[in-house]
Structures are given as C-alpha cells and as structure tokens.
C-alpha cells in the first residue's frame, strides 16, 4: 500500500512487519525517529516486541546480540558516535555469526561534533564483517531492510547486515513509498530458525577462546561467506522481484546510463538521486555521462564494478568519507578493481564531497563531470572553503 511517509516511519513500518522479538533503543540524532515510531507501535499494541530502552549504544548492540543468540529476531538502529561506541560489539556479532540487522542513519563523526550527513560512521566499520547496503531513497531503505533479514538469516550466511541510509536526507525526508502487506513479507521472509543458539535442550558454548590454532579459520570462513553472498544476493533479489515487483537487478550495483558513457561517477547513498538528475540533464545536452551506484558495499562487488566500468574512459569516485592519511575509501577500492585486468578506465579520480552535511548540489555534480579531464588527477574536495583554512594556529 502506497503511503506518504517520513523515512524513519517507513523503516519502522517495515521493521514491525518483520516482527522482531527484541528491539534495543537508544537516542542519537538523526536515527531517533525510528525507535520512537517503533515505541509508539508497541505502546499501542500494534507490535508485540520486547522494547528495551538501553543505557548506551554499546548495550543496544549487546542486547540484540543476546536476543539473536537466543534464536530470535532482533533490531536496533544508530548513527555516528553510537555506531563507533558499539563498534567492538559489532565485530563481536560478526565473529559470532549472529544475523542481527541494524540501521545506520549515516552521520558525520566527532570531532568536531556534527549531526548532519556523511558516511564516515558506517565506512569506518567496513572491516567488521557486516554486510553493508547503502540505499538511495526511502523505498530502497524499506526494501533493503527486508532483504537484510532474508540474507542475514540464510543458513549459508549467518552474518549481520547494516542498512546505511543518509541521515536527515533519508530519515527525515518524505516520499511516497510502497509498504508491503504483512502476508507478502511472510512469503518472502520465513521465521528465523537456527540450531546455533542458547538452548537448554542443546546446551552449546558460544564465544569461546580460540588460540592461534583455531582463530584464523573463523576469519577465513567469514571472508568466504562474503564471496558466497555475492552469488546468493542476486537470487534473493529475484525472489524479491517476484513477490513485490520491484527490480533491483542483482542488488549489488545499479548502472545508470553507463553503457556508452565516457564519464561515470561512482557513488553510494542518496547523492545518487542527485547524480541521476545531473546525468539526465547532461545527456539531454549530448554529454555521454552515467552513474554507477554501489548498493552493496560489503561484500564489495568487484566483478560487477569491473563489468560496468571497464570500457568507461574517465571515472570519478565520489566519497562521502575519508580514510585520513590515505586515499579515500571507495576510491581506493574502485581503483583496486582494475589492477592486473586487461581493460580499465584511463582515469579514475577521487572526489570528496558532502562531509558534515555540506550539500551536494546538482551544480556540484556537474562540476565533478567537468573536472573529470586527463589534465588533473589529484584528489579534490568539492565545495571546500579555503577561507576557513590557515597554515598555522
């Protein structure tokens, strides 16, 4: 049923349809509307979950860890500082192979404190073993939470999933979205079942000490599983299309008008909506431009990226996060795709934009396309204000 909803409300609705047994809630801007919506549903008797108001994000993640370890579905959401605070728990959850689903409402990280959108928080957790989706709009946010539970709980996967949605832009933006009916959700997402759990009938020991004779294989297994996810996700996306009608192709990347493009921007998240508009505008003027949207960032879909970009002459990678002291994260991973391959773009250039919520406008995007020439190859920050910078204190 189509509804005009705030992003947080839409996410709360889809989560409630997934019927989590336990929800852990802790406030941090800009994700707070999500647990607030869920709290309202619980209070009205519309949602039967155990709603746990924890005392920090570290405990929020620990509560969902405990709940999923007991064999039930759970949910929590966070942003920025909260994600960083729970980071050791997130590594722990992945290592324990527990299918937790978490929403990260992307927000810049301190210091300085900034409550607006960029992707530094979730990008900083890319090593954790979590599957990561970056959604472009609220409909994708709704759909990928459902896909998240489905892939997380798959018996061959058993890995946690982080659905990353740009804070404020998508959490507080309003869109007309299709919220699926409960029956359809049940068709797509069976109840969570696992023999690997805390069960008095089958008393297992979870979270053991693994010395150097045993640790490495646990990590290898997660690495291999991520590769398996790259093969499994397209199948799940096909099932999704069959039930809900929306086609995410393989759910890994979206190649927008890249077939004959000479210049392509690679990006993740809501900025892709703006880039699509810019692409359409420039295409009307005869410019051969396109967008490669990365939906699944972990596992990193190298093959799909290679296929999409191998014949594109100039590629701009738009990062909304940094790996301070080195190349921007998405940029360095995109570059690595082409090493040792027969074909590759002539130019792959790094652009950083939209940090701390600085707006990325249509003009900014068009500027990036313009700047994508073989004359300049250095990393560039878009819309930077040099007047705020000084060499010495």
């Amino acid at each position, binding site marked *: 049923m189509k509804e005009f909803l705030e992003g947080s409300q839409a996410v709360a609705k889809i989560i409630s349809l997934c019927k989590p047994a336990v929800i852990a809630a802790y406030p941090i801007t800009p994700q707070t509307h999500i647990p607030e919506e869920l709290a309202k549903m619980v209070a009205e008797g519309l949602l039967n979950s155990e709603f746990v*108001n924890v005392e920090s994000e570290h405990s929020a993640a620990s509560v969902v860890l*405990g709940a999923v*370890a*007991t064999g039930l579905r759970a949910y929590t959401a966070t942003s920025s500082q909260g994600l960083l605070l729970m980071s050791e*728990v997130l590594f722990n959850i992945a290592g324990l192979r527990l299918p937790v689903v978490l929403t990260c409402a992307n927000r810049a990280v301190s210091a300085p404190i900034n409550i607006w959108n960029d992707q530094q928080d979730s990008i900083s957790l890319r090593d954790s073993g979590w599957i990561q989706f970056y959604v472009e709009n609220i409909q994708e946010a709704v759909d990928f939470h459902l896909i998240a539970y489905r892939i997380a709980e798959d018996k061959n996967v058993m890995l946690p999933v982080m659905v990353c949605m740009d804070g404020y832009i998508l959490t507080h933006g309003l869109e007309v979205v299709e919220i699926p009916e409960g029956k359809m959700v049940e068709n797509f997402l069976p109840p969570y079942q696992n023999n690997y759990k805390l069960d*008095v009938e089958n008393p297992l020991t*979870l*979270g053991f*000490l693994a010395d150097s004779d045993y640790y490495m294989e646990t990590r290898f297994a997660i690495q291999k599983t991520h590769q398996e996810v790259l093969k499994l996700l397209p199948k799940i996306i096909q099932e999704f299309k069959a039930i809900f009608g929306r086609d995410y192709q393989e759910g890994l990347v979206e190649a927008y008008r890249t077939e004959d493009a000479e210049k392509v921007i690679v990006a993740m998240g809501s900025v892709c909506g703006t880039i699509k508009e810019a692409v359409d505008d420039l295409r009307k003027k005869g410019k051969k431009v396109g967008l490669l949207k990365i939906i699944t960032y972990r596992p990193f879909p190298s093959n799909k990226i290679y296929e999409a970009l191998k014949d594109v002459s100039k590629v701009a990678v738009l990062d909304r996060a940094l790996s301070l002291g080195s190349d921007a994260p998405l940029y360095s991973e995109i570059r690595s795709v082409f090493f040792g391959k027969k074909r590759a773009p002539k130019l792959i250039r790094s652009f950083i934009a939209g940090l701390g919520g600085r707006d990325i406008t249509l003009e900014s995007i068009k500027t990036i396309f313009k700047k994508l020439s073989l004359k300049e190859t250095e990393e560039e920050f878009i819309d930077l204000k040099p007047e705020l910078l000084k060499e010495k204190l």
Partner: protein
Amino acid sequence: MERKVLFASGHTACAGCGQAIAARLVIETAGPNTIVANNTGCLEVFSTKYPESSWGIPWIHSLFENAAAVASGIESALKYKGREDIQVICQAGDGGTADIGLQALSGMWERGHNILSICYDNEAYMNTGIQRSGLTPFDSDTTTTPFGKKSSGNPTLKKPVPEIALAHGIPYVATASVGFPQDLQKKVKKALSIKGPKYIQIHVPCPLGWRHEPRLTYKIARLAVETGLYPLIEYENGVLTGVRKIPGLPVEEYLKLQARFKHILSNPEELKKIQEIANNNIKRYNLFAEEKSNP
C-alpha cells in the same frame, strides 16, 4: 543423590582456584534450566578454550563489559517466547563488574530484568596478571599498585558495589564467600526464587594473585569473613535481613597468609588502618554475636 554435572572437570584453572569453586557451586545450584552470559576473565578463559568447554548449560561470552546487556537481550527474548521459566545469569570478575562492567549492570538493574548477576571477587584483574581493580582492597600489592618506598599498595577502599546495587532498588543483594559454600548455595537458591534483578558478590581467593598456598583457599576465604574484612550480608527489598556473625579475629590472621599483604605485617601504621576497616564493617553491620561489653 545424583549430582548433575553442569561445570565439568578438565578446565585449566590454577590449582586451588576460588573462582572455579564458586562458579561450579553457582551453576549446580541454579540447575540445567539456566542460560549464562559471562564476561571476559579467568573463568571464561579457563573454562572455554576451544574445542573444550566445561559448561553443561547454554553459555555465551561476548566481551569484557557487556554480559549484563547480553543477558538483558537473552532475558527479553525468553520473555517474548513465553519461556520465563528459564533462568538467566550474568557473571563477571571484579573488574568486569565494578569497573568496566558497571554501566551495563546499572542499566540492567534499573530496567528490572529478571537476571541474577554474580561477581566473582578475587580483588584484582587476575586474568591479565594481577592489576588493581575497583574492588582491590586497601594496601593490597598488585602490579599497578605495587608497594615500595613511596607506596604501601592500593590506596583506595573497595568500591561498594553491593551498596550501588541496593541504590538501584533491586529486590536481592548479598555477599557470599567460598569459605562458606553452603551459605553461598543458599543465597543463589534464594536469589533465583525472586523475580527481578539480583546481585551476589562472591569472595574468591586467588592462590596466584594473592600469593597463598593453593590448599588454603577455603581457610583464607573464611578468615576474610571472620576478621570482618568481608562481611557476609543479605538484603531483601532494601532491608538487611541476614548477617553472618563473626568472632572478629584480628586482621593479621588473614593478611599473614597472603604475600600480597606481606609488606603490611612490618608496618604497624598500615596494619592499624586495615584493622579499622574491619572494625567499621563490624560496627556497621553489627557482626559480633553478642554486644561486647566495655572493658
């Protein structure tokens, strides 16, 4: 009388480990219908080195400070499933309880989860090599509060975690000791019969960390209680309902058996301070069997 094995032999605790005694007594008393969340520490390390586990009940270790939060998730899931008959215990050492684990415990207590929280108090971070914790007693020699020319050991008193628990208004708070194993079992049994958050702090001597002979674990634990340094108390709904009366032995009897206090025996000023701690406990909880008449 068939005793169900829920904590098996073959673990790698030191010979004479007080925590091993307590952990086994706790889970045997709790029974098989129990799920345990355990913080990082000696117990977790010596009982679950892959592929071997001593545990006969479902057990999970996550991190150093979050067993109380993990247990909150387990308890909430069981509630959702309608299996509130299954008992939930979260347990940690003194570091994992009083220091790094205090926040998660406080949150769990405040939310009122039906969980028994246990602290195995061996009075230092033992698993990492005997560093001082918030429950390290006054003047104790640890690697981060060593005695020397400028120091007589740990300069602070034990953080009063039972009082902190009481301040949360939880229905059952008690201290126990492996020097009084039947009392410990009784307290665990009573705690598990009460709905809501419970806290039991168990004094467990550590032969390696306290530097005493392994065979003296039981004796030293008893002396801690009998000198007044470790009062055994029981609070129900905030009211003091149980106190173990003691003979009030001089603290030297306890200190002299442990090398971590060796430096105190030749320091009458510090010895006096420790005796005063014991005296204060005796006065506060009225630990003597009868009123001592004035000399």
